[in-house]
């Protein structure tokens, strides 16, 4: 009984509160907050139960009739749980952060409503048991994030929203074309370990076309070059939205989808056999370098972070598109690691903007003295992004580097290491000037006792600690790394 209802409940735990929140009046602040947190905690608990069950080898599946031939399937396998856990945890902290961040602004009911819908879509994407279900939630995600991107309602935000839609809807169209192509080939595309297309493997041309369409469609959200244009523009959104977009929802959904396509739709051996893996890896490599170089050129903190995301998410794609276990582990684990680290960075950027009205890198001089904890969190996450141990990013880089060699692609190591250097090039100057330079003029001291409201500070610190812990205790069985190894073993098991 529980095994069939649990995936659906995980989905509903953010969908229903989202719908209720829409109906709340703007002034019902307390009710809204309580509802938000209640939902987030519920989801955490459900996720924990499910994670434990899957770890024990139990199956969780909700099957709803949809089409005569295709059901809506929500299934929790180990890979989906990786993503769900990430989303559930980060949603929890982001909710707290957003409550603090948006205090006293307009249209909060709308914001939190769409916020919950956005997470519900992410849950759906993670739990989708077949390609159709995946596509449904993928589109729902596009729609529920649009109002968040244009939340501020300024002309600039609307323009960003336009760009966002233009990219994502075009991507969705390509994706749909690919999905339909596969469905017309097979009739039904269930996500299956080691691929669902074995029976039609002889249709090479169709499979390659479908693969290209799918990857191009997903590549928009993943922000693979040259489909990344929306990401830096979408920076006008409020900080919690950016955090969610970059760490959990949109970008990750794309990367998650690409992984699903490669591993659970085509099967890694088939993709390898079709000869489309290497081009994808090259695209990822180009994205990594391009994103890093562009990040160097940004003076706006959030833009710099955005380009950094472009680069970092391509690590995931690189990992899954190199043929081998180790790189796969590296790619998958980076899904989690990048999420935790990037959300920290965006929280920090939000804190700086909120407390000190600092938006540009050049204005961050001496901010370490005024906001030590935030700057500390920023430092941890930034160092992690560079890949310095023992922060989470190091683990990813370690596996990716070894994986590249395992796949006999040493040039990928060069790409990775160059990117690390470039990462250092755009993060370390910030860290330096924040800690070691004197501020241009003294900041006004905080009026609160803490450097910034606790609702903003605690999530920031928490995610920073998480990024540290994920790397430091990577060897633990239930760490992201341990979990990823479990997934990968199942995929590559002969």
């Amino acid at each position, binding site marked *: 009984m529980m095994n069939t209802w649990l995936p659906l409940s995980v989905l509903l735990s953010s969908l229903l509160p989202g719908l209720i929140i829409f109906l709340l009046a703007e002034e019902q602040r307390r009710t809204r907050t309580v509802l938000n947190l209640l939902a987030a905690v519920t989801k955490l608990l459900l996720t924990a139960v499910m994670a434990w069950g899957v770890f024990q080898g139990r199956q969780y599946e909700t099957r709803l009739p949809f089409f005569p031939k295709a059901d809506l399937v929500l299934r929790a396998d180990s890979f989906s749980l990786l993503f769900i856990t990430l989303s559930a945890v980060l949603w929890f902290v982001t909710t707290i952060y957003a409550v603090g961040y948006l205090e006293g602004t307009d249209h909060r009911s709308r914001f939190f409503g769409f916020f919950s819908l956005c997470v519900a879509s992410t849950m759906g994407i993670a739990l989708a048991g077949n390609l159709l279900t995946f596509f449904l939630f993928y589109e729902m995600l596009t729609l529920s994030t649009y109002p968040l991107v244009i939340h501020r309602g300024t*002309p*600039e935000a609307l323009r960003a929203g336009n760009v966002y839609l233009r990219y994502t809807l075009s991507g969705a169209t390509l994706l749909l074309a690919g999905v339909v192509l596969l469905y017309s080939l097979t009739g039904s595309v269930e996500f299956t370990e080691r691929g669902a297309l074995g029976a039609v493997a002889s249709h090479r041309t169709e499979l390659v076309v479908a693969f290209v369409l799918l990857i191009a469609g997903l590549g928009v959200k993943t922000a693979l070059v040259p489909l990344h244009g929306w990401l830096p523009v979408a920076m006008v959104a409020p900080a919690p939205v950016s955090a969610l977009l970059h760490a959990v929802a949109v970008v990750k959904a794309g990367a998650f989808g690409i992984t699903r396509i490669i591993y659970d739709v085509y099967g890694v051996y088939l993709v390898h056999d079709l000869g489309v893996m290497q081009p994808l890896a090259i695209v990822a490599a180009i994205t990594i370098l391009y994103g890093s*170089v562009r990040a*160097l*050129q*940004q*003076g*706006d903190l959030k833009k*710099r972070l955005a380009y950094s995301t472009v680069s970092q998410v391509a690590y995931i794609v690189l990992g899954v598109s190199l043929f081998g*276990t*180790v790189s796969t582990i590296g790619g998958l684990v980076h899904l989690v690691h990048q999420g935790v680290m990037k959300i920290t960075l965006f929280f920090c950027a939000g804190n700086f903007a909120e407390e000190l009205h600092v938006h*540009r*890198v*050049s204005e961050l001089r001496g901010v370490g003295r005024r906001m030590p904890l935030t700057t500390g969190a920023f430092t941890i996450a930034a*160092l992690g992004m560079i*890949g*310095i*141990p*023992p922060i989470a990013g*190091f*683990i990813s*880089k*370690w*596996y990716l*580097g*070894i994986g*590249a*060699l*395992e796949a006999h692609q040493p040039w990928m*190591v060069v790409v990775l*290491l160059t990117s*690390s*250097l470039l990462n*250092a*090039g755009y993060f*370390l100057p910030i860290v*330096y000037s924040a800690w*070691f*330079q*004197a501020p241009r003029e003294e900041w006004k001291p905080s009026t609160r006792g803490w450097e910034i409201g606790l609702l903003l500070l605690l999530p920031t610190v928490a995610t920073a600690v998480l990024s540290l812990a994920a*790397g*430091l*205790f*990577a*060897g*633990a*069985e239930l*760490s992201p790394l341990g979990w990823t190894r479990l997934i990968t073993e199942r995929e590559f098991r002969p």
Partner: protein
Amino acid sequence: MSGHDLASLAVIAALCVPLVLTVVVMIPVLRGIGMALAPWAALPALGLGLGTGASVHWKPVLLGMRLYAPDEVTRTYLLFTGILWLFSGLFARGYLREDSRRASFWGFFLATLAGNVGAVLAQDVASFYLFFAMMTFCAYGLVVHERTEAAARAGRVYIIMALLGEVLLLAAFFLTVGTRINLSLAEVPRVVAESSSREVICVLILGGFGVKVGALLLHMWLPLAHPVAPAPGSAVLSGTIIKVGVLGWLRFLPLGHASLPTLGTVCVAAGLTAAFYGVAVGLTQREAKTVLAYSSISQMGFLTLAVGLALGAPEAAPVLIGAVLVYAVHHSLAKGLLFLGTGLLPATGRKGWRGVLVLVGLTWSALEIAGAPLTSGALAKLALKSAEAAAHASEALPTLLSLAAVGSTLIMARFLERTVPKAPEQGSPGAGGMLLAWVLLLVVDTALLLWPPVGREELPHLLESKSLVSAAWPVVAGVLLTGLVWRSRRWRSWRVPEIPPGDVLWPMARVLLPGWRLLTADADREPPQQEDIGEGPPSRFARFRRASLDEFENAEEGLSQLSHVGLALLLFLGVFLLLLVR
């Protein structure tokens, strides 16, 4: 508690005490306690170096962390690392008494210590990299402690070089561990020796750690970073931190497992060149600490040379490693004394009993570095020479080493010349703590000559006349030469042209910097004003869009004419039938 538990507890304490203290210093409320305890943080490491610990294996930590192996390298490193950090810490307590950024210093000091100790303890590749990186990045805080423009520049060079080194190391580690993900250090030399890309790994290792060691052409950061750090910082930087680079070589190169004569020869050549080059550039320096830094480069040349020999001659590797250890202990303590001395002398003044004491100590340490007879330097050189003999190195090598020792003497003389006259005659009050720490270090240094942790078998040879002579003549020659120069300057005032510290860095920077500026130019540009975005003529795309929409509108208008609808109707019917009739 059993003895084994106690032994592993000692290992944990050596690592965790500085770590915990780092955190304590960071918390404002506990900062006072933390700073009071901080100088003693290296004590557990020192204790572990004196005793024996037990291996620790923490599977959940990082990629399965393994700490401590009871081998000679680990013990020796722990010993001198512990000693130098302990006394530097004690010295720093006095040195930084009135520094407003004390907390910052202690934080970085403790974290660097933890990294340093960890790197020595680490027994697997990932952990080693972790602690190595931790040490590297935290030492940055020591370099830029003064917050001056010079410090910032030195810090920049330091961090860039360090990052390059790390990148090379990572590549080497990837190649080494392969799909095993992580590897115990005990297996590393064998694995590297058997690896198909052995040469590449070795080059990467040599280069990667070479940055830390300050090997030839990778040494640029050293003369910049050592002088700007506060004296205790410089002491540990030059005394122990660069030795961790050598430790890396010892741990990761397939010494004793494979013969790589070409690489070995390159190393020997690079080491020898560095030995002379360091002296040559160092002699032109004006800043005392810079002189010392160049001396370090020169001294590290000897170690490079030894490692190169070991690469080429696997059978002699154990002896050479022993020699390297002897040399490392000697250089670490002696250089530490010298660096701390530069900080101490202004406080004690050169007059009075304190001044004399310090001057004597400084001279003694300088003689040690120069390798004068009956000093630890002589012991180290002796160990090195006998190991070379075991490796069947070229006949010319001992001579060259002696010549280099002349250089060492010269550079030490230069150091004393740049230090002593500048010091005030009278010291300032409150230098007692510093002096005490320094003197204690001197005592320990001397004690270690009598009871050396490694190279004990060479000790009797120290008194042989042959070695006395061979140790003495370079020093004498050096002193004479110095005297000559000294006199000549009396007659005619001439100055040595100063090569800017960092020497080859500056021409390189001139090439690289413009490129970097070009790359990051956009970041410094101020954003355009808000008004600019919406206004202005419409883009070409917008114009095209408008025009094509207008076209559609016109066409729609045409279609809307009543007669055209009739025509369309007929046409539709006609085409319909035509298709069927055809």
